[in-house]
């Protein structure tokens, strides 16, 4: 799974993207796996209400299935315009 991080999530985790070997069925399961890795992941994902997620470049929520997904991105609420 290709996992991408943007804005302060990228800064906290310390990299913009990585290949993650995972059997997670949902975004929430993937988050649990990532948080167990290291403190920087645990900190970045400590408040999910401050985060948004996209699966294959479509905004979705943390309950979303990862079946067939190739790319998951985590980022703070967007501030365009």
């Amino acid at each position: 799974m290709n996992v991408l991080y943007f804005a302060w999530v990228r800064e906290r985790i310390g990299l913009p993207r990585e290949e993650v070997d995972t059997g997670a069925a949902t975004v929430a399961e993937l988050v649990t796996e990532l948080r167990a890795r290291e403190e920087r992941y645990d900190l970045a994902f400590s408040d999910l209400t401050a985060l948004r997620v996209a699966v294959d470049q479509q905004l979705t929520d943390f309950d979303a299935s990862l079946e067939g997904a190739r790319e998951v991105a985590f980022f703070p609420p967007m501030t365009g315009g």
Partner: protein
Amino acid sequence: MRICVQAEPFDLGAESAAFAAGRKDMGAIVTFTGVVRDLADDPLEVMEIEHYPGMTEKALEQIAADAVTRFSLGDALVIHRYGPLKPGEMIMMVATAAPHRKDAFDGAEFLMDYLKSRAPFWKREVTRGGADWVDAKDADEDALTRW
């Protein structure tokens, strides 16, 4: 419908003129331009805009297509820049064309409301005092409920 996500500046006059040119069935053209605003108490050195290449274009195309359908627009244009921008520089513009004024204005407002909180852009303000990510405002999310 045209969507441009680019680092380079755009020419507001030329873009507006090209968008408005050659239409006989559209009685109303609305354009909106967003400009990097300086901060009152801590002068802004640069505004950095990060985005999610690939998703940004898809999200903007979807938002623009929704606006066209919903307000019966004849056309819509979105240009949004990324990278480092100085105070006074233009960040983005939208333009809408409709037979009548209300749909053109409403279409432009709808585009702005949605691209503010549904297109994957993030602003970071760099001042002499440091750098901070701009927080999303509850008001921006609330603005979507009116549509």
